[in-house]
């Protein structure tokens, strides 16, 4: 039927940035951020720089889930922050169940425990994400957009409530199993935990990038994000591809939850709200639907928070984050690495 409604032009999709100027832009931004920190913090500039990279890495890991889910089904998954929160509780549960209370100095114990914690938390949260999609979002896939959005907010409250009632209504402490010596790598002084978090976050992002750009399942995800019906015609099972997207996004949030536990040593039932909101901001800042953008956005927010503190406006850091968001969107409505809108000839 030739009068059939054409697929509406869409602005979001899962994509990867291949522009040559992105790495250069990132390098310049890092240098500028460092210089600003030198002005603000003087001798502490290096510590603050590392601190920004660390918390930026956590935001970036969460932001990836927002951007992937938005890219594939155009849903702002407001329950994603709670996935991060539950992930931190999985970390707490696992480490206290195993009976740890402090630093593990023997690397032969530490490394397997770390691997176990990450694998369990990522797997559990991945499955939780898939179950939420199946029960709460899939039945509403063809409903007006507001319906799944409200549902996502509802799921968010349900998860908070489950943890609030079932586990703890106040802050819980998570054993700090990573010993904390300061390492000296050339001129750089960095604590082991910071190095671990930064390397882990960057590796996970790199792995995701490779998965989406190079593998068959990655292509299935991208094609589903661009044109669901055309993907089906090619033999892509759209339901399982969307489930896979939720699994990966939620697993990354689970990893961020473990990092929260290991780095900050505390968690609480409502920690997902603020972190989720900031990570969502990171995704929008970077250009929603764009994987590279979400990663960059996460680090940008990490730096803004640290810079605000370094200049003595620590209490204004949240305001600074959202002011930046507004400014970026005024001048670049599609975000830092926003999509070209007219790409359908």
């Amino acid at each position, binding site marked *: *039927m*030739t*009068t*059939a409604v*054409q*697929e509406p032009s869409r602005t979001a*999709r899962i*994509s990867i940035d291949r522009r040559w100027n992105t790495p250069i832009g990132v390098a310049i931004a890092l240098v500028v951020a460092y210089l600003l920190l030198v002005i603000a913090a003087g001798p502490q500039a290096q510590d603050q720089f590392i601190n920004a990279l660390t918390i930026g890495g956590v935001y970036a890991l969460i932001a990836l889930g927002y951007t992937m889910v938005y890219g594939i089904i155009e849903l702002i998954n407001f329950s994603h922050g709670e996935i991060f929160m539950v992930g931190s509780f999985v970390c707490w549960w696992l480490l206290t169940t195993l009976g740890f209370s402090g630093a593990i100095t023997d690397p032969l114990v530490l490394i397997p425990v770390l691997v176990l914690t990450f694998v369990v938390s990522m797997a559990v949260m991945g499955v939780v994400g898939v179950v939420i999609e199946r029960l709460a979002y899939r039945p509403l896939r063809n409903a007006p957009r507001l319906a799944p959005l409200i549902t996502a907010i509802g799921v968010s409250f349900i998860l908070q409530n489950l943890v609030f009632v079932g586990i703890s209504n106040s802050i819980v402490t998570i054993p700090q199993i990573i010993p904390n010596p300061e390492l000296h790598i050339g001129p750089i002084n960095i604590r082991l935990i910071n190095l671990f978090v930064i390397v882990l976050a960057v590796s996970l992002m790199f792995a995701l990038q490779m998965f989406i750009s190079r593998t*068959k399942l990655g*292509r*299935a995800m*991208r*094609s589903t994000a*661009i*044109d669901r*019906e*055309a*993907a*089906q*015609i*090619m*033999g*892509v*099972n*759209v339901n399982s591809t969307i489930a896979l997207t939720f699994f990966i996004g939620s697993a990354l949030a689970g990893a961020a939850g473990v990092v929260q536990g290991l780095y900050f040593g505390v968690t609480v039932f409502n920690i997902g709200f603020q972190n989720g909101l900031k990570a969502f901001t990171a995704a929008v800042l970077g250009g929603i639907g764009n994987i590279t953008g979400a990663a960059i956005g996460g680090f940008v927010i990490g730096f803004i928070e640290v810079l605000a503190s370094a200049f003595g406006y620590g209490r204004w850091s949240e305001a600074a984050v959202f002011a930046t968001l507004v400014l970026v969107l005024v001048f670049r409505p599609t975000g830092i690495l926003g999509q070209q809108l007219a*790409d*359908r*000839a």
Partner: protein
Amino acid sequence: MTDTQPAPDLADASTPSGTPLLRLTDVHSYYGHIHALQGISLDVFPGEIVTLLGANGAGKTTTLKTIHGLLRPRQGRIEFEGNDITTMPAHDHVKVGIGQSPEGRRIFSRMSVLENLQMGSYSRKDKASLNEDYARVFELFPRLAERRNQHGGTLSGGEQQMLAIGRALMTRPKLLMLDEPSMGLAPILVEQIFSITQDINRQGTTILLVEQNARMALGVANRGYVLQTGRIVRSGPGPALLEDEEVRKAYLGG
């Protein structure tokens, strides 16, 4: 023609016999409350080019969507090689051998030409013959080979149509469904697309062609069906339909 075919036949003699590759029997499809297909019955036999003609809104694309499982019929039966595929999920159709170049091309704009073709072979297990098929697509459409690393969205309309057909060929279909491949193309490109369609058919692929360009489509087709508001109103061999008074009046400008 078989007894399941209620529409007036113009010539029974040329209708192939044997098991049809595709058979629709009294298929009814709806968009919400709109009764879009009101009892479609048609056959496509192995090796044929069959054309589905009709004005805007007659139900041509709806028929293809229904065959492909993107729209589930409320009534009727769809068989492919004698097997019932009426309720088969859309993504399984490529596995039995149904490929489609959809209306509006629907190529993956932010994926490269090569990646678009890779999507065509998404469900294939016979990795060995893949290279053969890439070679075949690039031979049919040399432009695609030149532009293999370019994003699909940056191609011209004609090139996008080639990519859509090439992508469908990569599924190695027994039945290739082409939905308005000539839409929006310059006359010279239209001729090229139709001649390539015939080449593909000669290489052994059965083709179900949906077109508004009646003269060209009937020219290449073995048989044709004419759709009007969800019903088949005429069917017969291509040349006979070209001569038919009603068809001439409605689709060929008198």
